[in-house]
């Protein structure tokens, strides 16, 4: 294919481990990463939208800032693993893509840092009763830009035939018909997930039994969340098809010819989206229809999971011509891989144990707290 002459040579060092293992770990860790990213992106946009003028909105913003205190560092940490695995399997494509927009790629870190600190600033100001709207808007802009940069680099690394144009300037890097629908695809998924999450948290809090005034706040919060999730999902269905048909013809055809392995996740994803819409449309009184709100949240997560598989498969189709002659040499350092897996299981188990203890070990009345 024209443009492939700019693809750097394959790294002569062998890949230490079977490729299937890298793909499995890549997809699994990316799923965790993207769920956390959804929380950060959707949370920051919804918080900026909500503002704090009304009590229920203020409550929503407090929740989202609290969630982002955890979600931001964890999304960065969980981003490390897929970043590692993409470099192992597709290093020469990935590095070149980043080098075509180097300042943007590096600037992403600055935006992350500003967005992260703004979260603490907003929390602090909110606790002091001061205004936070401008800071929330700025934070949302930071995370929107981070998403846009990620989408740009992702699209570039899959399309070596666009590199020549991208090397000519930013306009060349942005000139991709799938850029906007792909960006919106991530954004709308994030909004739908966080909208459903806000509603579900309100349902859970109301179920614990609260005073009438507080219940009204929770009701407002739940309605707000459901409405956001509903509109985002509605737009997502339109955008999803826009993205699908904006794909380059050979990619779309290649993907459609990939058989059941590709069609099943895609169909399940679309089905989950439609079901999500049905569930959300039926919710009129979220606090009384907690089951439906919970189903909606589960469906968003399920749709994200299958769409992560689809995304991975589409990438393979995009890159197939460029990698046709690629012969990766692999070795099998099973001892090392086993060591990683043991540490991974032990590390995750320890983390879960520590978090559960932190969430549940409360001092008895009169007992000293830390």
């Amino acid at each position, binding site marked *: 294919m024209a443009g492939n002459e700019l693809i750097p040579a394959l790294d002569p060092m062998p890949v230490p481990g079977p490729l299937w293992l890298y793909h499995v770990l890549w997809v699994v860790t990316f799923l965790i990463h993207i769920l956390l990213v959804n929380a950060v992106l959707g949370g920051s946009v919804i918080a900026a939208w909500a503002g704090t003028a009304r009590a229920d909105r203020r409550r929503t913003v407090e929740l989202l800032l609290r969630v982002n205190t955890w979600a931001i560092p964890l999304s960065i940490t969980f981003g490390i*693993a897929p970043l590692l695995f993409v470099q*192992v399997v597709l290093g020469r494509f990935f590095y070149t893509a980043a080098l075509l927009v180097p300042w943007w790629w590096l600037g992403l870190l600055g935006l992350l840092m500003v967005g992260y600190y703004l979260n603490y600033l907003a929390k602090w100001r909110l606790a002091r009763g001061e205004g936070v709207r401008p800071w929330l808007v700025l934070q949302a802009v930071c995370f929107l830009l981070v998403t846009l940069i990620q989408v740009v680099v992702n699209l570039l690394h899959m399309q070596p035939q666009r590199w020549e144009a991208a090397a000519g300037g930013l306009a060349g890097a942005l000139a991709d018909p799938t850029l906007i629908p792909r960006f919106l695809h991530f954004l709308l998924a994030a909004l739908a997930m966080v909208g459903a999450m806000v509603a579900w948290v309100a349902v859970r809090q109301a179920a614990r039994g609260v005073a009438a005034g507080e219940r009204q706040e929770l009701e407002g919060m739940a309605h707000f969340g459901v409405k956001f999730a509903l509109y985002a999902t509605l737009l997502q269905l339109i955008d999803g098809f826009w993205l699908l048909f904006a794909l380059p013809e050979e990619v779309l055809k290649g993907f459609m010819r990939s058989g059941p392995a590709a069609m099943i996740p895609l169909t399940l994803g679309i089905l989950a989206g439609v079901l999500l819409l049905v569930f959300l449309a039926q919710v009129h009184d979220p606090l009384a229809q907690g089951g439906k709100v919970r189903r909606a949240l589960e469906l968003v997560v399920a749709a994200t999971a299958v769409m992560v598989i689809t995304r991975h498969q589409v990438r393979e189709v995009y890159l197939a011509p460029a990698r046709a002659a690629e012969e990766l040499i692999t070795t099998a350092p099973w001892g090392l891989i086993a060591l990683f897996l043991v540490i991974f299981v032990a590390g995750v188990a320890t983390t879960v144990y520590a978090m559960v203890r932190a969430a549940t070990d409360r001092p008895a009345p009169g*007992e000293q707290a830390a």
Partner: protein
Amino acid sequence: MDYPIWDLAFGGGVLIGIVAIAHVLVSHFAVGGGIAMALVETLAVRRKDAALRQLAYRSSWILILVSTVFGAITGVGIWFTIGLIHPTATSALIRTFVWGWAIEWVFFILEVATAVAYVATWNKVRPRTHLLLIWLYAFAAFMSLVVIQGIISYMLTPGRWLETKAFWDGFLNPTYVPGLVMRTGICFFLAGAYMAFAALREQDVDARGRLVRLMASFQVVGILVAYGGYRWWEVALPEPIRALFLGASPKLAALAATRSFLLWALTAYLVLVLFALVAPRLQRWPVTAVALIAAFAFFGGYERLREGARKPYIIRDHMFSNGVLVSDIERHNREGILAHARWAAREDDGSLEGKGRAVFRAQCASCHTLDGYLSIRRLLASADAAMVDMILEIMHEQGNAYAGGALPDTTTLDYPAMPPFVGTKEERRALGVYLTTLVPAHVAEVRHGR
């Protein structure tokens, strides 16, 4: 070499340096701070000491705001930066140590989760759970150092990996343990140096004295461990590297000066800390700030020394700083560098000067800028065409020395910090022509006149 080249006026190496130094100053505190806070809070609980508890509380905010935010993002930032400046080397490191990094990542998860939980659960959980969180954090943070030290030290002393290409041979390289000991000491003293500010915020004068003395003790222990580790590291270095900056007549004077600077910085730091230990009540924040700067100076000096001692390699004895593999020298001489540098070759417009520009970008531009950092124009300001040719000839000969089988002692070379020139005769001639066009016209005229 085979990737697009990012033109940075201030140089890619400087950018890596800025990001890396910013990161290590924070990340080593994140490690040492975890251990220090765990010890401080344990003492606070056992002794029911409110001042100690307050010290841990105040320090935990530094930990979360500086370490998990700034530290985590600059940590990813190093990856981003080296991927942009040295993609070939980054790829080689990833292929060699992917499972090491994956293991480190597991410790990151535990580290970040426990750090956020630790700060979020003050006054909410029982003390034993709070202590569990900070001790788990300290363990995870230290383990991340244990892992990353293997990769950092490998780049300078790959040891038996050069023959076996085995993970453990690269990881457990000759300077792994000495470097780990030194970095552990640095973690301790940085923790003490940062937390000394939190100690000074204590209102009670007696309690403040106790806290200042405790933090000074941390720093003294850290300084002594770091010094011992540093000396051990020097001993563990292969002789050709030691010769660059040690001995009666070091080969690279700038590196020898850096060594001298960092040892004096450590001495000054020790003196300041001993003052805090002996007279804690007299301690004020300006003195603490100067001590912190001295600590930074030692650590920054060491990192500069380690990076400088690696030249002309990025992975010693394996890959040069421009991404050329030692094992590829003969091939490049035979086939030409531009046959293996697709992006740089785009500069070749068919003219000799264009080809030379392309060769420059392929081999030189990863370190040299035109007018900024390590400006080639400035370096060649007093050279004429004959001199440029002679330099390139010598650098080409250096390549033959590397390609000859046994790796040369870089200190015996005319340009010990530079990778050799590789490529065909025509490419060398083209590079000479291009470099001559960079020399200011008046210099060329004067030379010609002579």
